[in-house]
């Protein structure tokens, strides 16, 4: 899957985008756990992040298809 990161989550991980190999049955939650192994500081952001798959907000337990774009969305602050 393709992972997209923004704002402080991007800075904590040190990447805007990365590609991760995941098992069948992966979800945004399981992808997030994989990311936390790379960047320990990310875990505490979970409670403020939303997730989006292919540019739509979804539940953390949504199923992921091969090649899905998984974005972790920090609190929005436009305007």
């Amino acid at each position, binding site marked *: 899957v393709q992972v997209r990161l923004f704002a402080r989550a991007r800075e904590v991980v040190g990447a805007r985008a990365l590609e991760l190999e995941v098992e069948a049955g992966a979800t945004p939650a399981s992808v997030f756990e994989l990311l936390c192994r790379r960047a320990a500081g990310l875990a505490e952001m979970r409670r403020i992040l939303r997730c989006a798959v292919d540019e739509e907000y979804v539940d953390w337990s949504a199923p992921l298809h091969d090649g899905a774009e998984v974005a972790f969305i920090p609190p*929005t602050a436009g*305007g």
Partner: protein
Amino acid sequence: MMGYLTRDPIDAAALMRELPGPADGALATFVGVVRDNQDGRAVLGLEYEAHEDMAERQLARLIEEARHRWPVSSVALRHRLGALGIGEVSVAIAVAAPHRNEALEACRWLIDTLKAQVPIFKKERYADGAAWIEADP
């Protein structure tokens, strides 16, 4: 890209001039500008970042929804990305309609929903550092 997001300065007056047609009696606008303080702390400037493709799609959908909910004639919207100084325009929304109530309500709903839903992120710069805004103001 549908072009609601821009890295160039926003000309709010130009956006408004384009809108009202001959049957419109109201033009409601919201223009957000960069303020030099937040919670008593001096702010030197802002930086906006977005999930750009997702934000463009969501903004198109919000405008579509506003046009369904209220009998408005046309909507124009721009949101700035990148580094902004004090007094610069961060967002401009203009809604033209035959009458004022629908124009005002649609404009208010658009800015409120944009803030809550559209994946745009803001970093404040201070004299001694910078921070991403992660709580409702």
